[in-house]
């Protein structure tokens, strides 16, 4: 795999970016680089993106050029398979008041609402990164036929724990937030608890399964 393109992101961060298109294999290398760079004394934070990684460093301890050399030297040694996420099962109440857009997704995809639920809960998803909100997971693995455009009018307040589809992605809103995704259900699990030792339910690298807890067909 080709080494990442490196570019400074200001005076205290370095972007390491793999070429498009994004793949899971590339993302596994990103996680492996993140795990490695966490051990470097001058790097105080790592921030995975979609097929990229931002390293936050102290330029008084290491200059950007040295850090670039460190990344490129580490790159061929990284064992992408070593980053093994957990499998997290997420119970979902599909449809009804919890998933007011289930009918909309069915209409757009040409599937019955029951089939949308079946296919959504049959998939295995991978958390590529967390971003947007605390604990919000960008996941890959949505069946392509379930892709549905965002709502023309975003909601001003999506309820916390709503499960939605936005374009070719699926995700869960950890908090009440404005949002334009089509809501198909809701989980009872807490995605973000700042007082917990592990503040987010999900971490990059985790595999996610949605488990049907109940279905209310439109």
């Amino acid at each position, binding site marked *: 795999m080709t080494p990442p393109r490196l*570019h*400074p*992101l*200001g*005076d*205290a*961060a370095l*972007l390491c*970016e793999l070429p*498009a298109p*994004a793949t899971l294999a590339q993302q596994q290398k990103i996680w492996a680089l*993140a795990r490695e760079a966490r051990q470097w004394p001058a790097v*105080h*934070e*790592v*921030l*995975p*993106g*979609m*097929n*990229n*990684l*931002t390293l*936050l460093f102290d*330029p*008084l301890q290491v*200059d*950007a050029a040295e850090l670039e050399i460190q990344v490129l030297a580490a790159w061929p040694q990284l064992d992408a398979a070593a980053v093994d996420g957990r499998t997290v099962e997420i119970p979902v109440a599909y449809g009804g008041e919890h998933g007011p857009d289930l009918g909309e997704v069915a209409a757009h995809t040409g599937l019955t609402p029951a089939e949308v639920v079946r296919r959504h809960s049959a998939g295995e998803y991978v958390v590529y*990164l*967390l*971003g*947007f*909100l*605390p*604990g*919000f997971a*960008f996941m890959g693995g949505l069946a392509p036929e379930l892709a549905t455009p965002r709502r023309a009018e975003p909601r001003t307040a999506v309820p916390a724990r709503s499960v939605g589809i936005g374009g070719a992605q699926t995700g869960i809103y*950890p*908090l009440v937030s404005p949002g334009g995704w089509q809501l198909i259900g809701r989980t009872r699990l807490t995605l*973000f608890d*700042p*007082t917990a030792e592990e*503040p*987010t339910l999900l*971490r*990059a690298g985790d595999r996610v399964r949605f488990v049907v807890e109940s279905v209310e067909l439109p």
Partner: protein
Amino acid sequence: MIVVLKPGMLASVQDLGRHGHRERGICPGGALDALGLTLANRLVGNADGAAGLELTLGACEFRFETDTRIALAGDDFDARLDGLPLRPGWSTPVAAGQRLVLGGANASAAGKKGVRSWLAVAGGIDVAPVLGSRSTDLKAGFGGHQGRALKKGDRLPLGPSPLDAAQRARRAFGVRTPAWTLEGQADLGDAIALRVMPGPECEQFTATSVAALWREPWRLTPQSNRMGSRLEGPVLARRRAGDMLSSGVVPGTVQVPPSGQPIVLMGDAQTTGGYPRIGVVIRADLWKLAQAPLGGTLRLLKSDAAEATQAWAAQQRYLAQVAQGLAASGWPTARPRPG
């Protein structure tokens, strides 16, 4: 204890930020002017990481219920402690019962308008730390005082004062505040100069757009907030449109949404973004952006890592000089920022 009598437009508890949790989507937050809060903390004998209050556009009022000492950074909004002026960069004794009042947006000294102020109190605002910080995450609703902006009637506890009785009661004194102007940039008039390093997507923009970025004045619009400072000026265009994959952002990142009008991300911005990053404001100049007046003019000067590191080192020297001066006069020495 401090009682909030009037919070103004937006007052919140902030320290130097919540670090180490970006990979969970948790933004660093913290005082947008970390330099200002650090200075104010040192002036009252606090550790740099003590929590203070970030105030927006003045028009606020507080009552102290304890004998203590306070310092203000940023714009003073004609701040008065029981009628007597309190200038930024001054350390002032306060007796229980005294009131601090900041005037409205028109109260700033002529020719000097700001947008935010930072108030430090001896002992710091003693709310419970969450994920290693006392900063308020306004978007996610945790940290600080009950995870929200301050409201009338809120009572804020103070930590143990680092000052003894004699130090607390010492006559008011001040230090030189950070310099706004850059050497050799006198030709910028009233504009605030920010040094900016080219960002990872700078080369995706047309040559005309990049030239305009460095040459044209930019207006700071009133739609700015703790998430981002929105700038208005020439439309910045990419050579060709196209989606970007989610990628990390830091405070100071200048991202350009499809409107072509740049947004400089601030402490409460989300941790990853999907808009091209044309530049990044160097860390040493972020405090100016945090204080810059709404409607004011900014100039973005092309910079590089070497200049940024020098500017950062110069800022650390300034803080070290302040610390030395304070230590020489028997003031508790500022301890390094925790973490």
